[in-house]
């Protein structure tokens, strides 16, 4: 540290705690309380990055979240590295490692810098214009565009950090802990409201807390001293919860807000172990007060982007708060009074201020007079026309403005300068207000957009509302807060505020230069390298809407979201097109206000908590017996049980053979189960299923098909009549919840007169389904007293029996075509009854089978699976299931739609069977079916929905939906694949046991 840039004796930086950090491989030092930016500046480092397009050297520009240039890669760990972190926001910690982005091989010598000289070839819309042709080259262009796109590197390994979510509720949410927010918090608390106060910095107080000039006074005290007392008061206030290091990310409708709290990012890496890194607050506030302040605007002139050019307010904060001089040869360039506060801070800290350039003709406010009295040279009515110094500014050239302010006159004056503090006025932070749906209005006096209309219970105060001078900020905040909270009196009513008042204003969006515009580089958006020229080019090319200009020029589309650039872009568009800025409107502000890491958004919902999954009571048995699982909805279902390194195909062949030849067992617990009770239960079933239910007797089961009102198949399943007014409906595994809510919907809204009650009992019962020729013998071994004769217990019937104390409901129903019993028990006995079946079935080689074998077995019988063989466009007629549509019933859900002109078309896609000419060839599910391969475009007649190799039939079988399929039975068609064409013949959908003889064993 050769230069003396540190100013001693600062209250916010602890010089007794020296911290080391590494920037681009070099070890440097700062102090506790520094940000990374202030520590770099104290080491005389301005150059921290390269711009996105031209790779121009860029330096730290601001002291806050609006920083466009100083965005660094933090950390060098593959899992923990964090790209695009603003150096102005990160608190320095011991051992911090950071690197510049978007430069190679280094920030000081960057090959991409050649783009700066190619810039005449890289105008706005360059990519749109260049990469359009020839179209076939797109894939090649894409590779290079992707390579040069983006800043920083994403972590390549899983994020090991912990993140948290928390809900919060409050009467009054106050966003921003500056002076106006603090006053509002106190007023609300005094009115006994529960207040939540958010501040994105580590300390409360905003910019007033380090205000050190002698002009501003509150109640005859130095304003910062007055504020410190208020903060102490608020910290001890039990009505106020304060969250610091917490920035508001999003403001949604109904006063629902998201805020992110940083909990460990300021700690050294070793101190972060086992701590939550960030917490996302989901806040519901009765009322919201926005006191987010304002950000300073830069000025737009030729070469306004060199390292060393900073916002005047930032230069002031680095001196007054961090005790860091940003340069030793300072010049201020302003159009307003606020930069004169920077002049006083520079003077007070003994830092050399070479001159002030002011585009106004004069100013005679108290603060300007004070600066004049210090003998500082002020160039009135002058502007900067150029700057010099590649990696750090070293000289500026200024000239006098003409009367209109659109050109420069007279002689050039050159000034030495290693830090140029610029100020173009202030922009209220209205982002949150507009995110919430609020409408802005334009204030012509200050050239700002301010909050206007809102539907929500919210208020903007302080400079976020457009008040910039201390007396306005305080008095209006007090007045507006009282009105908003409907309070008559407050403890601040007699507040006495003194401050300098600005009298002269002048604003020029694009400052003139002695060179023509085409030869200059007046930057608007520093991060995306868009200049005033680009805006003008876009307008010449016919873009009118500000939203289009933004996208074409990419102004305001960087990680800073145009916090600095947007107002100038609007101003230049308005000037060029002779429009009022208020009529032009603004681009849309969208959440998040500052970028959020994905970890914060997902919180604890990672790994096994990403989504819930459901396990059947028999799950552990499946795991112990080496089952592979498949996800069905949220369920984990046993898929197949490979033995001795079997493939899925081998396992399925073995399992299905066993089920057909002796016995198999399936865990069917996942099927949806709805308990239906009430005197109108039977009528209800008649209305929701296509077939008739009136004659179903107690103890009998029936298969039903449920349609949507549009006539398309929605769900299917077997319903059992347990008692006079008591049914148990089963649904598909995936459709259970939807069926339940659909039925509930009809009951509550269309048929409230029906006496029917529905209860979801899916989780209450476990189901073991035993099938195969030996099923009866196995069941007989377990339930010795149960009469299993076909007369007493025929197919599609039900018995209630006891096994010890366990109530068992046994349904004789079959989804495989085999003799089959489904044993339903209370869920907690599921594993017991399953093991009982396995034990009893041992001598019959009972074989557990999974969903894959179940699918094969039912496909052999031509049974559909809703959702696999149907897709929401299949009617029962399309499925060749006309038999299940009752002709007698007057109405059921979807009936009228079955004879709409579209549903009675003969050439609809219909369910058919397909047999391959080569019996060993297995079709791929989803494969397209055609008649003539050579016709172009080829007519796609349908697709394969289910396909298996049947070990029983020793050939491949498939189900498919096919245009006019019913008429095409016996026809030869083609299934073209990527490497061959498979010949198929359309067949019946039932491949095995058409006579249904196996059902009785």
């Amino acid at each position, binding site marked *: 540290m050769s230069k003396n840039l540190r100013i001693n004796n600062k209250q916010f930086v602890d010089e007794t705690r020296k911290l080391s950090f590494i920037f681009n491989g070099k070890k440097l030092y700062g102090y506790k309380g520094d940000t990374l930016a202030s520590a770099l500046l104290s080491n005389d480092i301005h150059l921290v990055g390269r711009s996105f397009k031209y790779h121009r050297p860029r330096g730290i520009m601001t002291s806050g979240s609006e920083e466009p240039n100083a965005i660094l890669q933090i950390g060098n760990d593959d899992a923990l590295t964090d790209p695009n972190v603003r150096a102005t926001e990160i608190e320095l910690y011991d051992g911090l490692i950071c690197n510049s982005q978007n430069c190679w091989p280094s920030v000081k010598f960057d090959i991409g810098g050649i783009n700066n000289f190619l810039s005449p070839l890289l105008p706005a819309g360059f990519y749109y214009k260049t990469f359009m042709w020839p179209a076939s080259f797109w894939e090649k262009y894409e590779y290079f565009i992707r390579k040069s796109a983006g800043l920083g590197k994403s972590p390549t390994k899983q994020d090991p950090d912990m993140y948290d979510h928390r809900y919060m509720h409050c009467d009054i949410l106050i966003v921003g802990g500056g002076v106006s927010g603090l006053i509002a918090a106190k007023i609300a608390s005094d009115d006994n409201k529960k207040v939540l106060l958010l501040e994105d910095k580590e300390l409360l107080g905003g910019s007033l807390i380090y205000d050190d000039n002698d002009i501003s006074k509150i109640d005859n005290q130095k304003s910062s001293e007055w504020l410190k007392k208020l903060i102490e008061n608020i910290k001890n206030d039990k009505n106020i919860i304060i969250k610091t290091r917490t920035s508001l990310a999003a403001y*949604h*409708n109904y006063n*629902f807000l998201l805020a992110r709290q940083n909990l460990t990012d300021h700690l050294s890496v070793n101190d972060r172990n086992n701590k939550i890194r960030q917490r996302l607050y989901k806040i519901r506030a009765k009322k919201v007060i926005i006191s987010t302040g304002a950000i300073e605007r830069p000025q737009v002139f030729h070469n306004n982007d060199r390292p060393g050019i900073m916002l005047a307010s930032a230069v002031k904060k680095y001196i007054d708060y961090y005790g860091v001089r940003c340069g030793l040869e300072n010049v201020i360039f302003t159009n307003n009074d606020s930069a004169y506060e920077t002049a006083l801070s520079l003077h007070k800290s003994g830092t050399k201020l070479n001159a002030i350039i002011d585009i106004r003709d004069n100013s005679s406010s108290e603060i300007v007079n004070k600066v004049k009295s210090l003998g500082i040279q002020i160039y009135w009515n002058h502007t900067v026309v150029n700057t010099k110094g590649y990696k750090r500014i070293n000289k500026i050239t200024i000239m006098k403005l003409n009367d209109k302010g659109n050109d420069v006159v007279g002689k050039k004056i050159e000034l030495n300068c290693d830090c140029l503090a610029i100020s173009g006025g202030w922009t209220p932070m209205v982002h949150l207000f507009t995110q919430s749906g609020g409408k802005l209005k334009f204030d012509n006096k200050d050239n700002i957009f301010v909050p206007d209309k809102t539907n929500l219970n919210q208020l903007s105060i302080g400079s976020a509302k457009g008040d910039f001078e201390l007396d306005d900020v305080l008095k209006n905040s007090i007045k507006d807060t009282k009105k908003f909270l409907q309070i008559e009196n407050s403890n601040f009513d007699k507040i006495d505020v003194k401050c300098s008042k600005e009298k002269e204003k002048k604003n020029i969006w694009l400052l003139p230069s002695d060179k023509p515009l085409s030869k200059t580089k007046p930057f608007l958006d520093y991060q995306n390298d868009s200049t005033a020229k680009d805006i003008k080019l876009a307008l010449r090319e016919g873009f009118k809407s500000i939203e289009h200009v933004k996208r074409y020029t990419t102004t305001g589309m960087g990680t800073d979201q145009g916090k600095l650039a947007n107002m100038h872009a609007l101003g230049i568009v308005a000037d060029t097109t002779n429009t009022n800025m208020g009529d032009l409107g603004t681009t849309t502000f969208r959440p998040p206000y500052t970028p959020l890491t994905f970890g914060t958004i997902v919180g604890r919902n990672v790994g096994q908590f990403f989504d819930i999954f459901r396990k059947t009571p028999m799950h552990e048995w499946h795991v112990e017996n080496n089952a592979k699982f498949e996800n069905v909805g949220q369920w984990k279902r046993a898929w197949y049980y490979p033995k001795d390194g079997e493939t899925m195909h081998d396992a399925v062949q073995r399992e299905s053979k066993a089920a057909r030849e002796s016995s198999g067992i399936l865990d069917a617990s996942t099927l949806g189960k709805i308990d239906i009770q009430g005197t109108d239960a039977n009528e209800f079933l008649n209305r929701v299923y296509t077939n008739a239910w009136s004659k179903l007797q107690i103890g009998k089961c029936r298969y039903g098909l449920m349609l949507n009102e*549009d006539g398309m198949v929605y769900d299917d399943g077997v319903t059992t009549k347990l008692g006079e007014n008591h049914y148990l409906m089963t649904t598909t595994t995936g459709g259970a919840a939807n069926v339940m809510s659909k039925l509930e919907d009809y009951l509550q809204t269309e048929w409230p007169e029906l006496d029917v009650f529905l209860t979801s009992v899916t989780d209450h019962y476990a189901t073991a389904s035993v099938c195969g020729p030996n099923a009866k013998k196995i069941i007989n071994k377990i339930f010795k007293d149960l009469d299993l004769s076909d007369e007493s217990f025929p197919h599609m019937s039900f018995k209630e029996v006891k096994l010890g104390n366990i109530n068992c409901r046994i349904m004789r129903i079959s989804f495989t075509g085999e003799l089959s019993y489904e044993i339903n028990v209370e869920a907690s006995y599921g594993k017991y009854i399953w093991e009982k079946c396995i034990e009893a079935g041992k001598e019959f080689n009972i074989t557990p089978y999974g969903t894959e074998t179940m699918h094969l077995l039912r496909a052999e019988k031509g049974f559909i699976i809703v959702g696999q063989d149907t897709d929401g466009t299949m009617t029962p007629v399309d499925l060749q299931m006309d038999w299940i549509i009752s002709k007698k019933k007057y109405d059921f859900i979807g009936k009228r739609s079955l004879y709409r002109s579209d549903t009675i078309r003969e050439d609809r896609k219909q369910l058919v069977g397909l047999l391959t000419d080569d019996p060993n060839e297995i079709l791929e599910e989803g494969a397209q079916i055609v008649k003539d391969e050579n016709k172009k475009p080829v007519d796609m007649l349908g697709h394969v929905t289910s396909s298996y190799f049947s070990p029983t039939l020793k050939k491949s079988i498939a189900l498919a939906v096919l245009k006019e399929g019913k008429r095409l039975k016996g026809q030869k068609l083609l299934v073209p694949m990527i490497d061959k064409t498979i010949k198929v013949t359309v067949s019946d959908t039932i491949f095995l046991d058409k006579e249904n003889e196996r059902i009785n064993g």
Partner: protein
Amino acid sequence: MFLINCPYCGERDQSEFVSGGEAHIARPKQPTELNDDQWAEYLFMRKNIKGIQFERWNHAHGCRKWFNVARDTSNDKIEKIYKMGEQPPKL
């Protein structure tokens, strides 16, 4: 994220509810009497207006009751919540 005042449970977060589309479209009592156009009108045609829209909502992760909501689609303000079977309010 809306705050919805379920007529049976009180104010709850929107995440507990599902929307069920336009309200006051009664299922025809005698569908077989309708021609294709009339049936299509019931089945497919829904309003999409800027302004007050009457909608059905279900407290799916709560009491599972359906109810009606009058919502201004231009600003998502819920003007009125009323039970199934009640007439839409004049707004």
